[in-house]
């Protein structure tokens, strides 16, 4: 699916860097709300929320990417993504933009040790001066591989 000439991405910010998720995977974007902690779950699972009658698990992307914790989550957003019919929420610092990127604006990620496990990044997108890390959301959620490291 990576060779589509042009695709739209939902952009969000995490630790002052830009990330993108394929818009077709995104269901809604929600304001932060109360979580119910789930004991014995992987540490990056923040908990579950009540999304209009459905129980949806929420992942703290900062924890997932081993980024420093944030003190104030009040401005954070939850991006609800649907992967293989599974709904999962992702906590991000902010999200307000949808961006169209063509294939020539997408590069393969460099094989260098970064501050984010590079496996999670499918492409690097260029939008003027901004660099956008396009996430491989299946890998982030560990849904396809089913290998969870905590």
């Amino acid at each position: 699916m990576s060779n589509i000439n042009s695709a739209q991405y939902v952009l969000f910010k995490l630790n002052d860097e830009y990330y993108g998720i394929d818009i077709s995977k995104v269901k809604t974007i929600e304001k932060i709300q109360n979580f119910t902690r789930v004991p014995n779950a992987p540490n990056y699972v923040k908990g579950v929320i009540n999304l209009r009658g459905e129980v949806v698990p929420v992942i703290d992307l900062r924890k997932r990417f081993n980024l420093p914790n944030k003190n104030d989550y009040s401005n954070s957003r939850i991006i609800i993504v649907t992967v293989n019919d599974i709904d999962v929420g992702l906590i991000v610092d902010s999200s307000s933009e949808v961006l169209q990127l063509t294939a020539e604006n997408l590069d393969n990620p460099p094989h260098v040790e970064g501050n984010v496990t590079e496996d999670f990044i499918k492409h690097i997108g260029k939008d003027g001066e901004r660099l956008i890390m396009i996430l491989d959301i299946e890998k982030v959620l560990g849904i396809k591989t089913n290998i969870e490291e905590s």
Partner: protein
Amino acid sequence: MDVNQYLEIFIEEAKEHLQNMNENLLNLEKNPDDMELINEIFRVAHTLKGMAGTMGFEKVQSLTHQMENLLDEIRSSKIEINVDIIDTLFECFDVLEEYITSISISGEEGNIDSSGLVNRLNALLGNSKNEEVNEEQNEENFDDQIRDLEDHVINILSKAKEDGYKAYSIKIRLDENCMLKSARAFILFNKLEAISEIIKSEPSVEDIEDEKFDFEISLIVLTKEEKSLIEKEINSVSEIEKVEVAEINIGKIIKDQKESLGKKEGNKAFVKKNKSKTPSTTTNIKKKKNNIVGKTVRVDIDRLDNLMNLVSELIIIKTRMEDIGDDSKRQNMNEAIEYLERITTNLHDAVMKVRMVPIERVFNRFPRMVRDLSKELGKKVNLEMTGKETEVDRTVIDEIGDPLVHLIRNSIDHGIESPDERNKLGKDETGTLKLKAYPDGNHVVIEVEDDGRGIDIEKVRKKAIERGIVSEDRAKDLPKEEIIEFLFEAGFSTANEISDVSGRGVGLDVVKTKIESIGGIIETKTESNKGTKFSIRIPLTLAIIQALLIKLKEEIYAIPLSSIKEISTINSEKIRKVQNQEVILFRNKTLPIIRLNRIVGIEDNINKKELVIVIVKKGEKEAGLIVDELIGQQEIVIKSLGKFLSGIKHIAGATILGNGSISLILDVNSLL
């Protein structure tokens, strides 16, 4: 033509027809001479052929066509039925079932090859008689129809003749792609009734209205009009493949009738003739009765789930209003809430009932399975099923099939002895396998009972020691009941030889896990040489349960009421440690203590002296769960945590509380 929208209906109906065919085949095996069964199977094969043809499934079509030919020969006594034929029919059924399964998965028939079977059917037919036979048959039927006219019809005919009417016999064949057959037939009838009077219709008008016919309709009409006009009128209706109109020579029929009367000793012969006819009409009636099914509507399961969700929401809101009502203490409010409660309870019951399906759905596949298995293992088994009509929730139905299959296999493979052995033991050569279901309060009990050799306790004991499940010393003194429990341990199998049927080492432990995962329990009773009985007790539904809400620090958790024995308080100083396990002497019994806060990862509250414990049970096992605070009992709607969080330890699911927050449901079974 876009047939996809009909695919679901096709699959549903095909499955029903196959089920019907399966039952009739099994009965036929027992009563090979029952022509009614042959007729029924023929009818099913024919219907399937028509349906498959409409949908363009050629393999199904050709196979059923060949089955139809064979059955027709049997029906007309040209071929004698034998074991070989029945076996072949069973194989045809299997292949058909595979086709339908494949269609339901991929929308295509798949590449199962049935040409071998078709050839075998052909071989059974003797020579390859084909289409022509069918044609002939049709012609014969045509004459038959006129010949077999009932007396009252003949009376009407003779009267009509006097009044100058002509009688026509009309055969109409609807296009096989015709989707709304009964509607089409209705239009047809309307047209004909405008110009003529329909005095006989085969199939009957009721059957046509209910779509209980294939594509052919035979009519006898009276009219003063010409044949060509009738043909023209019929042909003006679309989706009609073939029309045949023939004038009936009324005079000749009446003469024939009279002749047959005269020839055969007057009235007696007439009575006889009537008599010979009576059986066929009664069987017809019988068949019709069989076809009467309760008035049902097919509903997509998703829609039901949606309805169920809405009811769940209503229950949540109701609970929320109860909370508000408590605060405001206004009389009217309380009354309204009580009323609301009554309605939601009723609505809940009603929706639950809609979701209930008879356990028959699961049981239906067993007769065939038992037949095949007993043949394969050279055993004689008689399957007795009772309580097929017992209803359970759809969610439960999906879960209990596999465990039951396993228990039945187990009983036939390990329980019931070979005919020789049974003879020696002075038992009836044929073993009996009883499958019984009955409701018991909010639960359903299913029993699988055989009259075989029973479980060899000593063998199990030995094996358990061998497998290192229990030490030799301990095993010596264990009572029978506890020894049997070893059967449900992982990796335990008593069969000396690994057979294809069961005893592959994955077995009863899987059954037990599955049953427990849906909140059920399994019990075993066995007596040497008398037999074994497995009893499964499962809840009627998995969707809504009564639960006790408790608090651990600030978090609220739900414990299913069904697993709670009692609630009590204990003094923290009385807790003792035995082999690293905290216990307390409670009602003169040692009760293991589980600190729930540790299970969910919350630090201990050391200062508390008086502790609240919730005593939970699983079978015979009990334990006391220490909680911080009790909130109360509530009806909760179980929601899954979803695939992403599946397999989280000690958590069975989640529920949404009245204030909209989520509380997790503890999996008590996993704690004990």
